[in-house]
């Protein structure tokens, strides 16, 4: 008998450890994921630059001073051969392969500096230029042998420096990973989410109000409820198919724009908002409604003056969580055309743009090793945004939700 009890207690201990182990495993998975991303990505926030002198007095830029503030300044400066001047200066300072050591977009950094200070185009000045992508990798950990040698030489001459890559946040996508940035994708994400919110929030909340408060319980409302619940569980790529065939083919809305992306995400988020709003509205006790009716309010006044304000914290929590989910979605947007290299920042709601998760996906496909750390850095940014949104939602829920 004692033996059996001991065996049972032993089984109990094993079972308990298995449960604990399962929880620990989930934690380990999450930690592993986060550490991998952060470890790869933190280096993406720094960049290596080399300081070289460019003597504009010796090799002048043949444009007048007023060109720098003209609307097509970029085009004119490019035509005036700024790139060759910068390459020549690099060769002077760094040796015969100097032009290969600096980034192919380095001349754009000089161009922006000249636009900010046109007087510098006449004198000799020192410019800090981003290095080419393989030099960047070699300086950070280990690149190929030739790059490592070049890095060693540059360090001896004291020309190499590293710094925080603030332009990661202000530049749009580029083919050279050293100058690629996420501003285009961030702006596209913000515009898309704005449209998704503007369409999904009113529709979702108003539909939930109608279904909870005014609709009579018959077969039609049951059918509506079932279909909304099913919509919430449909795979997201199906919404992409819907957007492709209805929005783009049938209605002809501009492709790959925040408008069509926002509409797709709105369709995807609306069932989530409806379900969250219905739960929040259901949790308001009937006594509030009866009391309002008792003081003489009409049914619409009961809902809009009494029920809705009380249900609002729950509605906002559900909306923020739904929006956070939409912000991280890629699959439906793949099908509406956002899977393309967009080198400019989107200017309007109908211009071609991309969103941050899509940018991560596009960069992950690139062969250049420099994009690995950029992708991880972009993932860090995305995770920070999403986690703060979820944290705000949970804070709202804990602070304002009333338990009746």
């Amino acid at each position, binding site marked *: 008998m004692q033996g059996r009890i001991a065996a049972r207690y032993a089984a109990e201990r094993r079972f308990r450890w298995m449960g604990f182990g399962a929880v620990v495993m989930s934690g380990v998975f999450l930690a592993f994921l986060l550490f991998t991303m952060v470890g790869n990505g933190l280096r993406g926030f720094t960049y290596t630059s080399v300081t070289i002198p460019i003597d504009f007095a010796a090799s002048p830029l043949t444009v007048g001073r007023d060109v720098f503030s003209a609307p097509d300044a970029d085009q004119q400066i490019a035509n005036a051969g700024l790139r060759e001047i910068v390459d020549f200066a690099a060769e002077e300072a760094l040796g015969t392969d100097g032009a290969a050591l600096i980034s192919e977009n380095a001349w754009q950094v000089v161009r922006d500096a000249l636009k900010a200070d046109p007087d510098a185009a006449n004198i000799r000045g020192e410019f800090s230029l981003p290095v080419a992508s393989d030099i960047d990798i070699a300086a950070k950990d280990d690149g190929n042998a030739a790059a490592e040698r070049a890095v060693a030489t540059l360090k001896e001459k004291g020309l190499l420096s590293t710094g925080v890559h603030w332009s990661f946040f202000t530049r749009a996508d580029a083919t050279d990973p050293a100058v690629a940035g996420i501003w285009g994708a961030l702006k596209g994400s913000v515009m898309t989410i704005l449209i998704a919110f503007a369409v999904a929030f009113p529709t979702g909340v108003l*539909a939930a109000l*109608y279904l909870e408060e005014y609709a009579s319980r018959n077969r039609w409302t049951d059918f509506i409820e079932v279909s909304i619940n099913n*919509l919430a569980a449909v795979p997201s790529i*199906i919404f992409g198919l819907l957007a492709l065939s209805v929005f783009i083919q049938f209605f002809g809305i501009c492709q790959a724009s925040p408008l069509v992306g926002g509409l797709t995400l709105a369709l995807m988020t*609306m069932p989530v908002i409806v379900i969250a709003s219905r739960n929040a509205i259901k949790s308001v006790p009937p006594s509030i409604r009866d009391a309002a009716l008792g003081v003489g309010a009409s049914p619409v006044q009961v809902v809009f003056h009494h029920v809705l304000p009380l249900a609002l914290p729950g509605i906002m929590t559900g909306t923020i969580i739904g929006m956070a989910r939409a912000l*991280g979605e890629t699959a439906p947007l793949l099908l509406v055309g956002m899977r393309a290299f967009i080198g400019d920042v989107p200017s309007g709601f109908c211009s071609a743009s991309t969103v941050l998760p899509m940018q991560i996906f596009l960069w992950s496909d690139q062969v250049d090793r420099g994009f690995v750390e950029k992708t991880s850095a972009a993932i860090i940014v995305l995770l920070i945004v999403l986690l703060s949104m979820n944290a705000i939602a949970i804070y709202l829920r804990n602070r304002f939700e009333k338990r009746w």
Partner: protein
Amino acid sequence: MGGTTFILLLLIVGLSVVGWLSARVRAAMVAGRTASRLHSLPSYHGWYVALWVAIPALLFLAVWNNVTPALITNDVLATEAGSNLPQSGFERSAILGEARSVAVGDRPIVSNPAAGPLVTPYREAAGKYRIIGILATLALVLAGGIYAFTRIKPDFRARTRVERVVMLLLFAASLVAILTTFGIVLSLVFESLRFFALVSPAELLFGTNWKPTTGAPEPDTFGAIPLFWGTILIGAIIAMIVAIPIGLMSAIYLTQYAAPIVRSWVKPMLEILAGVPTVVYGYFAALTVAPAFRDFAAMLGVPNASTESALAAGVVMGIMIIPFVSSMADDSINAVPQAMRDGSLALGATSNETIRQVLIPAALPGVMGGILLAVSRAIGETMIVVMAAGLAANLTANPFASVTTVTAQIVKLLTGDQEFDSAKTLAAFALGLVLFIVTLLLNIVALRIVKKYREAYE
């Protein structure tokens, strides 16, 4: 036309605000000294007038904007130059389109000589209809405003009428939800029918060779069994082998054994795991997990181990689904009344015997429903498989080999420049329809199981 519409919209909004303010004042004036003579509050009278100003004008504007292009085109065709155009077809619409863009100002000059004489008629017709539109909108605004304004009296039931409009708005919002469902089903079915006219459903569902080519569909190239098998292998087998034990055991530990402080830390951790976007999981799988598994497979001597393996994608997908299974199991186990647990413990069972023999059987419908919903979610997942599992349609049982799933193929078929009508593009819709039906069935069965077998304890 866009600029005019915007200005008109601003005008309508501005005039409705004016109407709202003046109606409120008038209602207060009409009530005289005793405001209780009014049936509705002054603000409701304000809303009444504002709605009468805005709604007819907005409806007219919506219809007018859609109708004017056709009217303008008719006017242009009636002129002499217009009647000389070819009767129908691509060239005619190209010429008309060019004339329109020159008239609007998008293009500086015409390249097609036939479009030249059409520009001036376009401009005239556009201008004429624009003026008509502006005048009609202003007339409607004024007429609506004056009509509503004259009806303001103390016993006028403004609130009832305004609330009727509000109810209509709520009803319309609910209709959008149904329209979305119908839209999905209809668009999928419509495009799939066009596909099934080219390739038979039997070939899609039962064929084993997936090699779609552009152009006319060749026989035996659209067999989707490898895709279905890949989806099941990754989503229903490997992912579930990872997710179900860990998720279920986590839920059991959290509900039965964990101290409240542990629970308050672990729950947010699981929510974070659920909130990580699938792109990040896919990248993690492609960057770290897949090479590790490939090296492991090479060490074991498995033939055909590729960097894009079903195992990598399946394991990461399982990790993604753990919070899902865990929260569903958590809810079901918590729903079992304490009395059953206390009774079992009182009879002398240990905790794990209570869990295994009393709680889990009682919570089983909820747990099963949760598992089915998790399978449905795993089947519909796209990004992880696109990034980590590759696009090779392989019918193999080797988890280290590269397989593809339905969702990854949908993405592959639709990205890239091809005509919308080709068999390849339509195949994506047919696959989408199959996916939609399968996930729908899984969801319905899951809910049915939960509803039917759930014991009512109280």
